[in-house]
């Protein structure tokens, strides 16, 4: 085995392969940081170009793009409240408030470290436990998945912000928007109003870009009209040096959140079909519930950023576990990656390890190298972006809008996607103005189709006979957890005492704690 690892290392440490890893991570990072472009698009566009590369270089390149994208998406989420990808929505919740407190550099550093750690941990899990874990993941049928998803949906209550009712409403709006598509069973269009482009559902990216990115721009335009526009450079210039650094103590204090995020990201990312958005959302909720200061979440709690980013990045290698072990991709990005494998004559699955073991070792080493390179690229990228952000808004915002239009066009089916994005920009604007939660909207929208599909599958498989649960203990466990969680979380949000406790601490309260830590450090 050692000689195989040794020769794999030799294969890896060539200019071609390492060069492509650096290129891939860099492209991924910048694509992730740009709102409107996301890594699935980048993968689809760059996949054909890998044709001429060697298999190792091509695969490491594509994996690098994936990793870079997951980390880069935090940048615009934190600096501009505009998530680079749907999975970074959760990062905006605490990342942007931190920027408004002048702590943007701190947040960025924390996000980067959390991303890299999550990434490395999940990669190690992939390398060591791919086969048994994949077996476990695939053994989960629709009945178990339905239970897990129902459990996840109860978490909506935890992130609904100040008003539980508003959270539910926006979650239901999200669910409603998930209904137009081809009906899974009959294949007949449902609520598509004659638009063929809606046959696969309302394109997620058009909705996400519209509600998250463009709506934020509308909000800023609105503020500008009312004369209340606060230029973001004020935030950056008023930052004290303490707010720009991430001290060792602060980093260690966020370590539990990072680890929780990594675990969540690995577990959820592993299950086919669930995706990175769900993992960051669940990690955030878990960390918030476990925190001693849950009321700080949403106002600039570093743990929120750390957990979300660790989960987001951990789900990338984790989603490759079923690909490597069985040859089953669980999301669009992994399907594209698998396409890349096959383009180079490799069939992912149990035989890959048997027939191409040196290549597989080389790929694993390449993934670890990419994690390290991610750290360097991230550092460099942040420096670039914080400087870019100081450019006048009159230049930046049109560029952002332009990128959003491109993203919506590419992924949303042409101009249809662009029109959709504009519609949702206004929807998002009103959601923000009336203080409806975004996260629950997106959760409803993303989870909706998954829940519908798995529940319908479960009903058909079981012939609508609840007795089948007796054969699926895992599902019973999750259903019990779902009931428990729904009760606990909604009680927390709806009891008057809990509500007023959450309302009492204004924004300023977040600062003293942080400053205290800094004093001690000095």
């Amino acid at each position: 085995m050692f000689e195989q690892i040794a020769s794999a290392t030799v294969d890896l440490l060539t200019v071609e392969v390492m060069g492509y890893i650096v290129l891939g991570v860099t492209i991924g990072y910048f694509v992730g940081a740009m709102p409107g472009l996301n890594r699935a698009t980048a993968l689809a566009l760059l996949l054909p170009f890998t044709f001429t590369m060697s298999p190792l270089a091509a695969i490491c390149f594509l994996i690098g793009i994936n990793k870079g994208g997951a980390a880069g998406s935090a940048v615009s989420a934190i600096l501009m409240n505009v998530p680079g990808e749907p999975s970074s929505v959760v990062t905006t919740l605490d990342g942007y408030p931190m920027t408004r407190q002048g702590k943007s550099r701190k947040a960025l550093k924390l996000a980067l470290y959390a991303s890299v750690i999550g990434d490395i941990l999940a990669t190690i899990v992939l390398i060591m436990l791919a086969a048994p874990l994949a077996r476990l993941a695939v053994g989960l049928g629709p009945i178990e998945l339905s239970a897990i998803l129902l459990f996840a949906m109860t978490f909506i209550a935890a992130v609904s912000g100040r008003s539980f009712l508003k959270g539910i409403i926006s979650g239901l709006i999200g669910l409603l928007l998930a209904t137009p598509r081809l009906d899974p069973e009959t294949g007949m269009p449902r609520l598509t109003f004659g638009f063929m482009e809606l046959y696969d559902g309302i394109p997620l990216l058009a909705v996400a870009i519209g509600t998250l990115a463009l709506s934020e721009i509308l909000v800023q335009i609105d503020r500008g009209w009312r004369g209340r526009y606060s230029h973001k450079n004020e935030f950056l210039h008023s930052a004290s040096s303490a707010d720009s650094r991430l001290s060792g103590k602060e980093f260690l204090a966020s370590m539990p959140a990072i680890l929780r995020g990594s675990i969540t990201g690995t577990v959820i990312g592993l299950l086919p079909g669930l995706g990175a958005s769900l993992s960051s959302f669940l990690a955030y909720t878990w960390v918030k519930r476990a925190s001693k200061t849950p009321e700080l979440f949403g106002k600039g709690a570093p743990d929120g950023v750390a957990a979300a980013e660790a989960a987001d990045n951990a789900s990338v290698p984790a989603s490759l576990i079923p690909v490597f072990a069985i040859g089953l991709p669980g999301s669009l990005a992994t399907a594209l990656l698998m396409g890349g494998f096959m383009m180079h004559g490799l069939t992912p699955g149990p035989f890959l390890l048997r027939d191409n073991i040196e290549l597989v070792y080389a790929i694993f080493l390449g993934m670890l190298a990419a994690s390290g390179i991610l750290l360097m690229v991230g550092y460099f990228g942040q420096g670039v972006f914080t400087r870019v952000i100081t450019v006048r808004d009159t230049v930046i915002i049109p560029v952002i809008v332009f990128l959003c239009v491109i993203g919506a066009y590419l992924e949303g089916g042409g101009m249809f996607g662009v029109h959709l994005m504009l519609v949702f920009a206004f929807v998002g604007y009103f959601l923000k103005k009336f203080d409806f939660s975004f996260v629950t909207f997106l959760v409803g929208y993303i989870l909706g189709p998954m829940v519908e599909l798995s529940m319908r599958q479960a009903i058909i498989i079981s012939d609508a006979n609840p007795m089948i649960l007796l054969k699926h203990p895992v599902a019973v466990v999750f259903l019990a957890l779902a009931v428990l969680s729904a009760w606990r979380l909604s009680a927390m949000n709806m009891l008057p005492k809990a509500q007023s406790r959450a309302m009492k601490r204004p924004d300023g309260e977040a600062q003293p704690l942080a400053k205290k830590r800094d004093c001690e450090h000095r």
Partner: protein
Amino acid sequence: MSGTINRRSFVAAAAITIAGSMPSLAQDYPTKPITIVVGYAAGGGTDVSIRAMAGPLAEILDERVLVQNVGGAGGGVAAVRVAAAEPDGYTLLATTSSTFSLEPLVQQTVYSDSDFTHVATVVQFQGAIFAPASAPFDNYAEMIAHFKETGRTLKHANYFQLDKLLMDYIARKEGIQVDFVPVQGGNGAVQAVLSESVDTAYSGGSWSPHTQSGEAKPIFATSYERLVFAPELESMKDLGYDIGTTSYITISVPAGTPEDVVNKLSDALKQVTVDEAMTTMGEQRFMEVQHWGPQETVELINFEIESFNEMFDATR
């Protein structure tokens, strides 16, 4: 008469000169880049095959070949787009044959088979029905017997209309009940089988790695003739049916494209498909890379249309 130019030969000579100086489409074509619109998302079986062919095709035709992905509606969205394009041979549609033979039957498509001129068929998928390794049957006869004896309903993972029609048809002919479990794409079907949530599923070829690893087993081929890569499987003909369905990757152009352009494209594609790199890729992805010309493609699609129509009528 010898040596002198009389009126007849002058007219003949003039006619030939004029005819020869008129722009001949096939000789000039192509003069600008060609776009192939693929009816499925990037990274999938259809897409990867077409992208693999785009390079060699560009070399043979000495023009750039661009590949665009327009997924949705089983190739329908791409079909609509190409049907409306100029019939000059610069916009091609690469999709599965079911887009022409099946979709118009089960959906209200705005296009129909007659909106297109078919250029060639380049790949045949190896469609088969497969089941979890633990299934209590190994072939078609045992499968039917099992469900008849136990009276259970056969749960079939379904994402494609093709296998839904087929299984429905078979069920009615054999007198067993079938229920369809909706899944997302071929991968969803594989997952349903691997998690033993369903009794059977259909796949155009991605079943092979899983049957090789012993996680699943193929039951029978859905094509009329036996499959090239799995000749040991019984095909529909063996089972006594006069219909069969599998899927092909077809290349088409809008109807009205000049015949010489179509022929030139078909010949170029033929050269691409016999290339060794192509056949190797086909073997690895478990797809039969072959070339069927315009006329044969029309026959293939017509056979599919007949098969689907028969199945459709029987299951109404």
